[in-house]
């Protein structure tokens, strides 16, 4: 187990290193630079060059990369070229919106998908099971933006129960207001992701029904449903954890879109603005943090799997 953990950890670090090079190089390929944006329409080439020099953008790329990576080891992702503030600080500030949004979305997705997915599998062939399955298929195909719009129109504009956009200025100092402002965005992501997850839970459950140990349990006198719930669901849960790990990436992508739609000051919205402004140190930091997060989730899921599932431990 220790050897496995160390190997997996080394892979994680290698993944991060490769990602950092890819992020750095691909951003340099983008046309356009921040110096021209700061100087703006009405500036001369000399003015732009002066700004570029002041920001250190005229230095050789390997030197810029080494600087960045060097800082990384000290927990320093550099400073924004535009605002001059620390990238780590800004990430931490925006994470106050994006992390709760992600967790809430994931919770909603799980709450929707697990019971309904199992139910729809158990009711396979019956009208309600089919309706659930078809409904999930339809919901999973709904564009996130459209789902968000509908929720806003109903709950914010018509009913006036929840805010249509924005995050309270007081942030989490006003927890109720902060939570309220995240409900509609999280529902939007949660419903769409949950519908996708539901289909997965359903097929995993159906697979479990066919497994020998479930059949054996049923043969010993349990009803089919009892056998499934007692012996089949733990196996289903295991594969759901894996898929949830993958869902995290989907939720991050969803957050980028949803934060625009709901004007939430989170990491997704910051990323879009920073790419448009070519604030490269910031974009690098944001992308690396997001990549790192997804890689770490993958790492944790793998370890969890090994701890929970005796078959995998034996295999090694």
């Amino acid at each position, binding site marked *: 187990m220790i050897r496995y953990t160390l190997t997996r950890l080394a892979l994680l670090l290698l993944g991060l290193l490769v990602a950092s090079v890819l992020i750095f190089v691909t951003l340099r390929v*983008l*046309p*356009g*630079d*921040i110096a*021209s*944006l*700061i*100087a*703006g*329409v*009405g*500036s001369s*080439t*000399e*003015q*732009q060059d*002066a*700004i570029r020099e*002041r920001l250190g953008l005229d230095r050789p790329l390997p030197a810029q990369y080494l600087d960045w990576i060097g800082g990384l080891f000290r927990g320093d992702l550099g400073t924004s070229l*535009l*605002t*001059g*503030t620390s990238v780590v600080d*800004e990430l931490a500030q*925006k994470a106050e919106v994006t992390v709760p949004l992600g967790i809430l979305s994931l919770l909603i997705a799980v709450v929707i998908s697990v019971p309904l997915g199992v139910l729809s599998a158990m009711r396979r062939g019956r009208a309600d099971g089919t309706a659930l399955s078809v409904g999930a298929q339809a919901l999973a195909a709904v*564009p*996130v*933006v459209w789902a968000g*719009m509908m929720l*806003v*129109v109903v709950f*914010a*504009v018509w009913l*006036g129960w929840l*805010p*249509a*956009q*924005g*995050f309270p*200025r007081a942030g989490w100092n006003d927890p109720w207001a902060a939570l309220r402002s995240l409900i509609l965005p999280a529902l939007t992501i949660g419903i769409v992701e949950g519908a996708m997850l539901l289909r997965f839970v359903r097929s995993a459950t159906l697979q479990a029904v066919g497994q020998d140990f479930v059949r054996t349990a049923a043969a010993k006198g349990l009803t089919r449903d009892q056998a499934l719930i007692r012996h089949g669901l733990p196996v289903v849960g295991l594969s759901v954890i894996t898929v949830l790990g993958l869902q995290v990436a989907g939720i991050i992508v969803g957050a*980028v*879109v949803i934060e*625009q*739609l*709901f*004007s939430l*000051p*989170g990491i997704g*919205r*910051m990323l*879009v*603005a920073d790419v*448009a*402004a*070519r*604030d490269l140190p910031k974009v690098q930091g944001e992308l690396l943090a997001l990549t790192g997060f997804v890689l770490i989730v993958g790492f944790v899921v793998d370890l969890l799997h090994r701890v929970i599932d005796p078959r995998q431990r034996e295999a090694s």
Partner: protein
Amino acid sequence: MLRRTTLATAALLAAGLLALTACTGGGGETAPTSTGEPDPDASVAIRLVLEPGNLDIRETAGSALDQILVDNIYQGLVARTPEQDIVPALASDWTVSPDGLTYTFTLREGVTFHDGQPLTPQDVVWSLTTRRDTPGWRDSARLANVTSIAADGQDVSLTLSAPDSTLLWNLTGRAGIVLKEGDTVDYKTKANGTGPFVLSDWRQGDSIVFTRNDAYWGDPAAAAEVVFDYIPDNQAALNAALAGEVDVLTGFDANLQEQVEANGDFALELGQSTDKGTLAFNQTSGPLADKRVRQAIRQAIDHDAIIEALASGQTQYGPIPELDPGYEDLSDVAPYDPEAARELLAEADAEDLELTLTIPSFYSTTIPQILVSDLDEVGITLDVNSVDFTTWLTDVYTNKDYELSFVLHTEARDFENWADPDYYFTYDNPEVQDLYAQSLAATDEAEAADLLQQAGRLVAEDHAADWLYNGASVIAVGTNITGMPSINVNERLSIVEIAKSNG
């Protein structure tokens, strides 16, 4: 999907002015629609579109900064009204010598900065001198021919090497901003000015909050607090308005008029602006070097259809919009006539032309769609290259690597670009340059405007570019709000008179 949302968002940027001038009750102020008493403790939320990257008024370009900071936070010796008149600000009065070479301003007494430090004549001298001598500061070149700036008691005088009819106007903008000498403020995130509002909070990617400056030298602001909410998406902004989360929407889409007015809490207003939807022609080489081809393109475009599609704005056939001095109706220069366009192209031996239009991606697709179809009518295939703004700045603006380009030029009184052969317009006509120089040197306003008008006609007749439309300030104002300016608010938004009533 996200992309589509962002594009829709920017439709407002391409929005133009409306024929509904009756809507604007004489001038920049909206007619009070509210019957309730203004609440002095009110907080007014205004939706804006473009958020500044940072707040450094000295260096960072972009109208997003001028829009909120000038007049409200920072001030100069003089200011401009929404109607574009020059009025006193930190100077209570000024005189100009008959030869136009010396401007003497009388500085107000008792003005303090937001941090409590007093404003001294030396601060003015330092601010203007530093602005002039620091090329990295925005608009420093506008003070280039000021040879000396000196204080004598409360009087500050500027001496020029040659008359400059644009000096006072320039002093109403960034070039004239007065900062405290020796201030150590982090200008990127903080501010220290003399205006009626104090910057109290900035949450990047979200909102900026101004609170009333209780120590202000002039009439105090009507609202206790103004929150600028940056909501790029038009639909999200509409939802925010309908849910009662914002009081004013700026940069709105006139096509959404019915929806925003549906519940009676908002009224759409259209004010004039100096936004010029400019189709630039790179005329240094290639087919666009031929004046007949440029004229053909202009005559192939149905400008009225553009105004109709935007549901706001008016046509503009020359470089100078109606709000600026030197305006003249030039619709006779290039009237819509596809048949004439085809003939011109045949004459220039330029049939079956293929051209590329480079356009920043945040503009609505309305304009490129109309252009593609209009030009197709006369045998020109238009290839639309949508790029983000930083790419546009590098490729088109700096490197002049383009054929056709569309950008909304929002600045007021920016004729100088047509007199600068190095500008990305690539237009080079010594006669225009000479007329512009004469206009600058004129000591009489009417004479300066007349010279500009002559130069403007020449630019239009050379078909140096096409002006697709003169945009409008499209705003939706809550019926309990008074004092919201409606003219040119994308460029400058003075909020001192905005009041909100509970009624």
